């Protein structure tokens, strides 16, 4: 395999406390040395990373690929191309595909497609219950054997707390991580917006914060009871941050992530009725956003994910409540994370940790680091590059982003997957 030298870049590898300019040597798909030239190393390819940042490839905890089942919105090939252009080298696929990931056959199908797309690190999350219907446990052991990295019921509700308890006990039996989207369906109902000032004014069915924080509190109680390792996915509000902070202080083995858009946008953005801002959990108040940002800084929140949900045009055309929720977010993940570091006292190294070693650690993966000997999943980006979000610069099949036609700063120039250059930015003339 090729020997590659990445030269003159600012290397940020949070897991190894590295933030310095120097070389990275890669051979046989693995990192050979960082900040020093390896002995007897004659590179066949040199990447000049002057004025760029070299970091581990990003590990995204929630990416909808829309395959199998929703290929009008995207497919494994289109969305993994978008992932590579965004520096994302490992991703978790939630189980709400069609058919859902509740049998080894579906896991195999995805694995096969992933190999054909040259993107092996799609980590399927198995369904917690059969058909995600919330009543009968899935064959979690078989799913784990087939390669599922965790279990989850995606956004689907569970029948009752007893089912959640049993599911957690059973997941713990097989040492499976539960990824839990905290949502008490009876309280969120048919809501499509935060139950705040904007929903009040516009007559939009609201979702109270308590719909999330009550479900979160119940899950934390059951984590204590069952010993199940729990990761809370895409939290959105102040009370969730507070409850997580208490649980962590108490010593509970729990982690959490936040979707990048929740760190930037609030309920005010949806006015008057822009369906590109229709997301679940909904965009909350400025106070909630402040707590989320602080939670990230103080470590209550462990990871940032894209919560990528590409949609076809029709899904977003209609009166706000009837449109489908979600944003296509892979390709804005890096620039929006960089914007946080510039505006809101989050260190660059910490922000990169939230995208790399921390989510990898949650999943028990060895990736997200540039440690010599580890697989060379590398992202190189230009933190100063401005680029307009438009069709020319966009690979996801879904264009449903609130940032469409805006200019963002920070762009991936190279992505390496196991030492192989798989993406290189081609500047338009």
């Amino acid at each position, binding site marked *: 395999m090729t020997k590659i030298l990445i030269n003159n870049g600012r290397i940020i590898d949070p897991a190894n406390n590295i933030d310095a300019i120097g070389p990275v040597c890669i051979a046989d798909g693995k990192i050979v040395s960082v900040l020093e030239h390896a002995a007897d190393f004659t590179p066949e390819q040199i990447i000049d990373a002057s004025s760029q940042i070299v970091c581990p490839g990003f590990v995204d905890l929630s990416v909808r690929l829309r395959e199998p089942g929703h290929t009008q919105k995207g497919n494994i090939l289109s969305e993994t191309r978008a992932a590579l252009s965004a520096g994302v080298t490992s991703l978790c696929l939630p189980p709400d595909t069609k058919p859902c990931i509740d049998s080894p056959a579906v896991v195999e199908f995805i694995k096969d497609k992933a190999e054909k797309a040259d993107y092996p690190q799609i980590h399927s999350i198995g369904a917690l219950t059969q058909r995600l219907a919330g009543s009968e446990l899935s064959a979690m052991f078989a799913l784990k054997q087939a390669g599922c990295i965790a279990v989850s019921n995606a956004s689907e509700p569970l029948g009752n707390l007893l089912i959640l308890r049993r599911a957690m006990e059973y997941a713990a039996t097989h040492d499976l991580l539960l990824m839990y989207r905290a949502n008490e369906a009876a309280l969120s109902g048919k809501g499509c917006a935060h139950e705040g*000032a904007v929903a009040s*004014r516009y*007559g*939009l*069915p609201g979702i109270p914060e308590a719909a999330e924080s009550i479900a979160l509190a119940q899950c934390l109680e059951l984590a204590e009871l069952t010993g199940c390792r729990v990761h809370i996915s895409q939290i959105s509000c102040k009370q969730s941050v507070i409850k997580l902070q208490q649980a962590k202080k108490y010593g509970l083995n729990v982690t959490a992530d936040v979707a990048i858009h929740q760190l930037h946008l609030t309920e005010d953005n949806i006015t*008057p009725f822009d369906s590109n801002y229709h997301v679940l959990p909904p965009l909350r108040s400025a106070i909630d956003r402040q707590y989320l940002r602080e939670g990230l800084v103080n470590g209550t929140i462990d990871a940032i994910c894209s919560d990528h949900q590409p949609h076809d045009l029709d899904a977003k055309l209609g*009166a*706000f*409540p009837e449109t489908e929720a979600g944003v296509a977010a892979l390709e804005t993940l890096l620039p929006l994370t960089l914007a946080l570091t510039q505006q809101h006292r989050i260190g660059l190294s910490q922000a990169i940790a939230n995208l790399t070693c921390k989510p990898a650690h949650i999943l028990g993966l060895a990736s997200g680091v540039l440690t010599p000997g580890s697989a060379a999943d590398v992202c190189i980006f230009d933190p100063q590059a401005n680029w307009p979000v438009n069709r020319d610069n966009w690979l996801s099949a879904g264009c449903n982003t609130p940032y469409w036609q805006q200019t963002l700063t920070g762009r991936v120039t190279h992505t390496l997957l196991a030492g192989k250059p798989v993406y290189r930015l081609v500047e338009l003339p």
Partner: protein
Amino acid sequence: MTRHIQLTEQGKLKHFLTIEGLDKELLTEILDTAESFAGMSEHQVKKVPLLRGKTIVNLFFENSTRTRTTFELAATRLSADVLSMNIATSATSKGESLLDTIHNLEAMHVDMFVVRHALSGAAHFIAQHTAPHISVINAGDGQHAHPTQAMLDMFTIRQHKKQFEGLKVAIVGDILHSRVARSQILALNTLGVAEVRVIAPKTLLPAQVKTMGVIPMHDMDEGLDDVDVVIMLRLQKERMNSAFLPSESEFFRCFGLTEAKLKRAKADAIVMHPGPINRGVEIASSVADGPQSVILQQVSNGVAVRMAIMSMAMHSQGGAA
């Protein structure tokens, strides 16, 4: 953005989707224009040729006899050709999308859509996606807005109270689900009333009602004290089924308007209701039919106010005769 989409570059009304973003001057212009049409219904010839040759389509995705009829009447009196479509029972239930319906009608060269829809934001959505020469009038979208109803209510208030300054207004009942209340609150505050109170149990008030420029109250005696205008809202029967209220009779006991409760208001207070009325649920018959009730005048005023809004929106398009 709401202002931008509703007004032309010259600040004239193009669409009428919500009261939000419209200033006092424009609302007053609507009321003044309506005033000039109001006398017309007593004439032998009830028509003016303002919109002759124009085609107006009433697109009702949700049934409503009263609102649709007044819109039809208003359009007819402006000499427009009117087509009313009940889409609740038509194309969209066969899988045709909202946008397909709109584009099909556009292809027939219509000039204005009057839209009623069960979802908040539907009128905005249609206005954003129609051809630039078409005006959209919101005849009620979900729980968001019903701005023509609010304007006819303002017209009725002005008839009786002459001006808005200093008025205390109470809106009573199901504020949470009411597009009428949302539009009334915006209109009353824009026109400069002294105070808007909303009186309801907590289950029927929006979560952040205080941010809407109103004083929330839960007691009728206190809430009606010294008010000039009492607006009662219709209580939908299905609210009993989803734990908003225990029963109609308990609601009437707490929030129903009776002669005794009305005595707390000013002696010359007027009583309004957007209709249709649930007698004995939100209002006692003796009050609905009593001397302070202006409920039927609201209905008559609906035609003049809708004529005003339709003709203003068409004029800004430069298309009126």
